[in-house]
């Protein structure tokens, strides 16, 4: 099954027909957006297009196919494989991962109980975010997180949407499989939001390497402890650590002889110094490398790589990926 078939089979029959006819390059498509009683939109190469009933992409909205409530309902049937009941946890979190690792974001009416979301009904908004792996995007970073045959504790710092998950995913793959003469190591991944592995029925849809164990949909702090106790990883990787529990668990991992690869939201090292627990970890020089990403003309631009003392190791131009 090719990528296009894999993607369009989750849509209602009419939308499936339209997308089948469309000449959009599905390797370039980033998002497909369905909103009840609103135009069918497709985001391709960072530009938004409407799709006409004949499958033609248009930059203006006139003449574009209007998505009906029935089409949304039908699409939900196929996304959930006729089993919405099996995705209650995913509905609470607002997304479902489908075959191929594509993430389907959902919005509608939430049913809350106390502070928690119990479920979501009247789903009227669907955003299919197509997964894109950038194999090799970590090539230029690898030499700086590997020293004397050992992986270094590394923290990827990046504002949202700058490619930190994509970079971490490729670093995990390279560490696990081994690359350019470096031996592979056992990597444990706590994938709380299914973004790294994009697991479908427990199997990662993205390439995370041959020595990687994935705890899918597991809270990060608990998952890190579980991995240490059960899978004896040499490296533990987590995406978007932020809460106090996450950082405390990271500290525990680092003191257990495991190496840690993590990402956090932030614009630079100074930004992190203002966050209470991280500030303490930075002061104690717990991280051996800081990889700072920035948005230049495209996501995935490595601005700086710093050592544990904040000394700049490499500059920007040589480190860009995704060209």
């Amino acid at each position, binding site marked *: 099954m090719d990528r296009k078939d894999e993607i369009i*089979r*989750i849509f*209602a*029959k009419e939308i*499936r027909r339209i997308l089948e006819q469309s000449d959009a390059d599905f390797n370039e498509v980033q998002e497909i957006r369905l909103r009840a009683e609103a135009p069918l939109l497709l985001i391709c190469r960072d530009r938004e297009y409407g799709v006409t009933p004949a499958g033609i992409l248009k930059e203006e909205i006139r003449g574009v196919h209007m998505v009906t409530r029935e089409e949304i309902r*039908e699409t939900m*049937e*196929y996304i*959930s*494989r*006729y*089993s*919405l*009941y*099996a995705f*209650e946890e995913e509905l609470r979190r607002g997304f479902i991962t489908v075959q191929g690792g594509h993430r389907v974001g959902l919005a509608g009416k939430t049913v809350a109980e106390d502070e928690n979301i119990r*479920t979501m009904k009247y789903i009227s908004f669907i955003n299919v975010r197509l997964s894109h792996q950038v194999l090799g995007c970590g090539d230029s970073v690898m030499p700086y997180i590997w020293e004397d045959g050992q992986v270094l504790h590394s923290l990827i710092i990046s504002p949202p949407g700058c490619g930190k998950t994509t970079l971490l995913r490729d670093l995990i793959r390279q560490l696990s499989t081994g690359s350019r003469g470096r031996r592979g190591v056992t990597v444990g991944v706590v994938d709380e939001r299914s973004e790294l592995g994009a697991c479908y*029925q427990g199997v990662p849809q993205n390439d995370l390497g041959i020595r990687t164990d994935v705890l899918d949909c597991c809270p990060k702090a608990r998952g890190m402890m579980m991995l240490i106790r059960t899978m004896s990883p040499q490296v533990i990787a987590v995406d978007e650590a932020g809460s106090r529990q996450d950082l405390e668990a990271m500290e525990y991992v680092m003191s257990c002889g495991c190496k840690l690869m993590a990402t956090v939201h932030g614009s630079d090292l100074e930004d992190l110094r203002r966050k209470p627990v991280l500030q303490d970890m930075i002061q104690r020089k717990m991280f051996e490398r800081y990889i700072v990403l920035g948005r230049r003309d495209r996501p995935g631009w490595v601005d700086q790589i710093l050592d544990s003392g904040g000394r700049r190791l490499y500059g920007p131009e040589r480190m860009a990926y995704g060209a």
Partner: protein
Amino acid sequence: MVLKLTGSLLVTCSCGALGLWKAAQWKEHLKMMEQLKKMVLMLKREILYGHTPLGEAFGQVGRRTEGVLGELFRGTEERIGRGQGELFAVIWQEEVENRKKDMFLSDREIRELCAFGEHLGYLDLEMQEHTIALYLEQLDMSIGFYREHEREQSRLYTSLGIMGGLFLSIMMC
């Protein structure tokens, strides 16, 4: 005379065998209903406790069961896996209709089996529980009826067969 006697014997034996066959069918019917109940209970466990999606749940149960009912469940899993944009109720109904000749089920039971698929997968776990519970109740009623009348029906069909055979023989002689 010998010919007549042989003919009568053959007629009696054939009618007796027909009676025995009908009695066996009744038992077969009961067996199938009991097997179906077991499968629905397994499906219930997969859905309610494993939160397994319908396709996989049908597949898991189907692979543990031989015969036409196993084929029905496995066929349903395969159709769901193909993802050709059909509603589940349609898939289930077609799979049941395609195999109904091989199932020892009455028209009413086939209708109930089709209706079982109409609401399966719809809404949350509570809804699944109710749908399955309703169908299990219908199955229990049918099984109860077949069990209650098993002995008398077996006797009735066997004796009717033999007596019918004897009657025909007498009439022919």
